[in-house]
């Protein structure tokens, strides 16, 4: 399929799918992080500047730590995401799907300096646009990938309807299509449901109009095992 998913196989021999995030969400996350960093610098800058040259030295140290180690700190200790990435549902992972440790996180963040060249993340942006998994140079060297991570949600239920046995056995692809339709039906307008049902007259042939979609949902109820 034409998709950017990256499948990784875990030691349990199941396949997990990583969904790499592209340039735009990552830029937005970077901007949020930039704002957070500037906020910290300013919040500390006012009281520290009252301390004279001693405070100035401390501020330089704070600035140094924020510039190089702010992302490392959050990526390793904060579940793989800086505040900016967290707010956009992004997360840094090793490309084998495991959470990043100190080594890879340091590598990708120290190499930010190279991605920044020649100006304004020029190399990083070009690299991300060219790479199949949107990696910047630091990601390539560290072997990391920034992915979407959806929050856990409840299971959408298929609408309850009297189960309807198909007249002849259905093949796998048809079964899948039926289930996918029934699952999504709640989010579709009735007109669109009918439109879709019309595409499979051999299943929805018992009548046009309202019956087509209802019949498909009945078949789906049969397939998930709600038999009376």
């Amino acid at each position, binding site marked *: 399929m034409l998709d950017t998913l990256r499948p990784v196989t875990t030691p349990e021999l199941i396949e997990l799918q990583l969904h790499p995030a592209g340039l735009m969400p990552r830029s937005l996350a970077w901007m949020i992080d930039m704002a957070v960093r500037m906020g910290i610098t300013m919040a500390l800058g006012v009281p520290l500047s009252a301390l004279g040259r001693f405070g100035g*030295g401390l501020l330089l*140290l704070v600035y140094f730590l924020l510039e190089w180690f702010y992302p490392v700190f959050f990526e390793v200790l904060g579940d793989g995401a800086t505040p900016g990435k967290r707010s956009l549902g992004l997360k840094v992972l090793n490309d084998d799907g495991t959470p990043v440790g100190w080594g890879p996180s340091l590598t990708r963040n120290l190499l930010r300096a190279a991605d920044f*060249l020649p100006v304004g993340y020029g190399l990083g942006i070009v690299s991300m646009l060219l790479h199949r998994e949107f990696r910047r140079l630091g990601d390539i*060297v560290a072997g990391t990938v920034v992915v979407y991570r959806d929050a856990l949600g409840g299971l959408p239920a298929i609408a309850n309807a009297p189960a309807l046995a198909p007249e002849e056995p259905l093949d796998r692809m048809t079964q899948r299509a039926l289930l996918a339709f029934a699952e999504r039906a709640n989010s579709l307008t009735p007109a669109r449901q009918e439109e879709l049902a019309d595409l499979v007259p051999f299943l929805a042939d018992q009548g046009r109009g309202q019956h087509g979609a209802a019949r498909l949902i009945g078949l789906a109820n049969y397939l998930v095992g709600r038999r009376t």
Partner: protein
Amino acid sequence: MKQEQFEQHNEASWQDFEEWLKWRHKRHAKRPGKDGKKGFAKAPFPSRELPERYRIICLQLALARDRDYTQALVEHLHRLAQLGHDVLYGAQSGFTRRVLQYAAGGFATDVRANAKWVLASALLFFGPMLAAMLAVHLWPDFAYLMLSPEQVAKFESMYGNDSRALGRVARDASTDFHMFGFYVYNNVSIAFRCFAGGLTAGVLTVFYLIYNGLSIGVVAARLGEAGLAENFYSFVVGHSTFELGAIVLSGAAGLKLGAAILAPHRMSRGVALRQAGRSIIGMVCGLAVMLFAAALTEAFWSPLKLGLPIKLTVGGVLCALSLAYFTLAGRRDGT
């Protein structure tokens, strides 16, 4: 088994798993110490059951895919498996022990393993430095190719006999600390950029090494010509081992990255870069610590106006200790 039955049968255990993940996240965010307060839900199962429950989820995910259960169920199980995978394989253990072990010998081992890059970097750094010193000696105006007349005058006043401290204009405790902050920020950032510059096929790294070598050589020779050599060496001898050593190491790391791009041998460039990165990131952390130590020395020890013999002895001891560390430490582990 049909999906409806499958869901009814396992729903409770999935919810337990989800609850446990939430519980762990909360505990993680709060950190132990403030535990025991109310509003702190109990874990649905003891943590030691996690691996087993995670494996069951994996099994169920595989079954759900194989049996063509609905996309939503498969995705739900996939998310549970992903989160479980994060917890199980994200466990970081023994951080302090790893750091101590690395400091005790791993760092020196890494530097020896990359000896050819360290040597190349040292040549690119010390070669131009010596050349610049020779050039200034033969033709004093060479200095003005690198520095403006104002800069030369500033350096000469910093190390002049009438300045109250070496290497700077004013001197008191708060200035020392300010300079410390500045040295850390400036020097470590330069070293990191020198390393990262390796990704431009090494061009930027080479430039940093040569440029810094030339500048240091010009300043040293210029001050020597002005008869201020004693003050200058009294200032730099304490921290120069750490500082120059760290610059050379950052150059070595950058050159190795650059070589991975230029000559990846029988690997793809991506794989070559990954291998190079993994083999030098420890060294880069080590050199950052060296620069931190150098900044401490440079800010609080080097400006003291003590006799040159004392300064030379301390500098010599630090240099000898560093050399001993890099040649001897970590040999027992088989390198």
